[in-house]
């Protein structure tokens, strides 16, 4: 089921964060985590009914038609864009780190 899949994605993201030392892979893991989270948000609004439709309806239909929850969809759009923002910053930091240490591996950068 989709809920399980989303939790699985979150867990995979966490697993990636636990095991990876490569900067790029860490960013990817974060993205996996965020995607799982986004799917989780979407599943929260899903309505498993024959007559439930996507929330694009005219004003006249509003009282009569059953739609799935539109709010999580709106939230997820915001969450996606925010994820893009952090990923962009993360990647540019990765580039900075590569310029400084010539490696993407956190272990090889050494503790200061």
């Amino acid at each position, binding site marked *: 089921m989709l809920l399980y899949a989303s939790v699985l994605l979150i867990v995979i993201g*966490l697993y990636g*964060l*636990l*095991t*990876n*030392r490569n900067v790029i892979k*860490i960013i990817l893991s974060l993205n996996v985590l965020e995607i799982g989270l986004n799917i989780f948000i979407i599943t929260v609004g899903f309505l498993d009914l024959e007559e439930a439709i996507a929330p694009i309806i005219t004003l006249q239909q509003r009282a009569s038609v059953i739609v799935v929850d539109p709010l999580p969809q709106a939230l997820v759009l915001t969450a996606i864009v925010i994820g893009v923002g952090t990923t962009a910053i993360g990647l540019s930091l990765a580039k900075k780190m590569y310029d400084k240490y010539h490696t993407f591996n*956190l272990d090889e950068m050494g*503790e200061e």
Partner: protein
Amino acid sequence: MASLELLLIFTLISGVIAYLVGKVHPKTGSILTIIVSGIVFASLAYFGLNEQLLTKVSYLPYISFIQTPLAIFFGVLVSFVFFMVSFFNPYFIDKYTYKAVYSLLYLLSLAGIIGIFFTDNFMTLFFFFELVVWSSLFLIPLGRDEEVSVWYFGFSVFGSFALLSAILLMQSVTGTFDITTGLQAVSGFNRLSVFILLLIAAFAKLGAFPLHYWLPKVLTDSPDPVTSIFSGGLEKLGAFIAVLGLVKLVPTGFFIDVMDMYLTHYILAILGSLTIIGGTVMAIRQDDAKKLLAYSSMSNGGYIIVALSLGSSAGISGGLYHIIAHAIASTAAFLAIGAVARQTNTTKMSELGGMLHKMPITYMVYLIAIISMAGIPPMGGFISKWLIFQGVINKGLILVAAATFFGSIGSFLYVFRPLAALFLGQELPQFKETIKEAPIVMLIPMVILSLLNIVTGVYPTNILAYINTLLVDLNIVQLDITRWTIVGTNGTLNPALIAVMFALGVFIAFIIFISLKKSRKVELMDTYTAANFIYTEELLHYSVDFYAPIERLYEPYIHFMKKFYQALANKVREVGALVKYYIFTSKPEVATFFIMLVIAILLWGDLV
């Protein structure tokens, strides 16, 4: 000034003024401390002893005062010590890094003292208690070693927090911060807890075993006037708290019928005895005269604890009398050492000698002070120790009695060592030309204190009478005194008679001294050793390592408390370093792991 509030405000404001004046001219600022502490002492003594202090508060909203004999007793005593010591300030001010701040902190501590003794509210008491802690804290590092003040702060704050816990516990049980009613209302197990916490605070402030570690360090390494303040004044805050805990709080816990004493009090007496023994033993082996007196201060704190824990009228009045006697004697002794230190820049016995020739008055002051500290008649220390012995023997506490006697004998052993080393013996060449007697202003307090040492030893009646009124206030049977005698259970003491006998003895000895042939003065090089003449002026000091054989007996055992506290500090540091190493890496997976772990723990509790 008869109003406590005005006195407090006056002291605070003059502290600021002394600071501002001190910025321009440090010496004038420090002279202000003499005037202000003199006014404070005079007001407290004059109005307090006539019970005319005004306790009404109109400008300070959260503070309230009460005039009790106990407060006046401590207030007069400690402000007197501040007043006496302040005469030294102008002569030491040049040595300090922060001259103006010294005067400010000095008066701030004095203000705190007034607040502590005269408030009737525990929270206000704590406020002033902490004020004194930090204002005195910054006085210490003006001396020899800066790190010492950290130890002082650690122990002091440990004590204050014990006091605070006692206050909070009492307040949560009884709903009041009022000292008298609160201490009376708290009962049962809570009373025991309050008792223990208060005593921890008292021990920490008094420097009693096992919280003594800071005291010798602080007394040794702070500037000389500050040492006197600590020994004669601030240490007595601990005694004040001890009186609150031991006397004002109705005792509780297991009662030992055989000893006619509570178990808790017995334990305290034992701890006091350990303090006496520890202080004595450590004092014997010191080379530094200040350090020696520091340990003696510690052992005298033990006497106060023992005396107060007895609970009998002889014990408590002995304890209170000892507070006075020791305050006067130790202030005088430290001031004398301070005067020597100012002229010679050292307090090491192995580096000094023959100061008698140049500083005879200081010598006399020191002599009288140590006679009192050793508890030899006709000085004040004798009276208090006599009372304490009476109390201990009446209770039949053999171990404690042994400890107190050991302390007395021990103090014979050690207090005369600085006398011999510093003042007697050969005059050292490097001091021959330069050294003079201390300035007259510094001699004033020393002489006054010496006279008081004698007066308290010869004619204790007035003070004991006041202590008797204090005992009434504390609901304790009064001591049986007449004009010239003190009646104890094992006999009657007539201090004046003893003093006359003593004077007679001294007189006879003096007659013998002058009637016999004069001894020849020998220069340092006018001697020989191992059949060789001496060509360099070396100090041949018999008081260095004098007690080495005795020291060897206990040498291995003396450091265990020091080791304990240092191990404690290291443990804290280790825990910190460990966590720092394992959590504070720059690897994100550690935090991820912990986040997952915390979630798992909650879910585990949820699901199982």
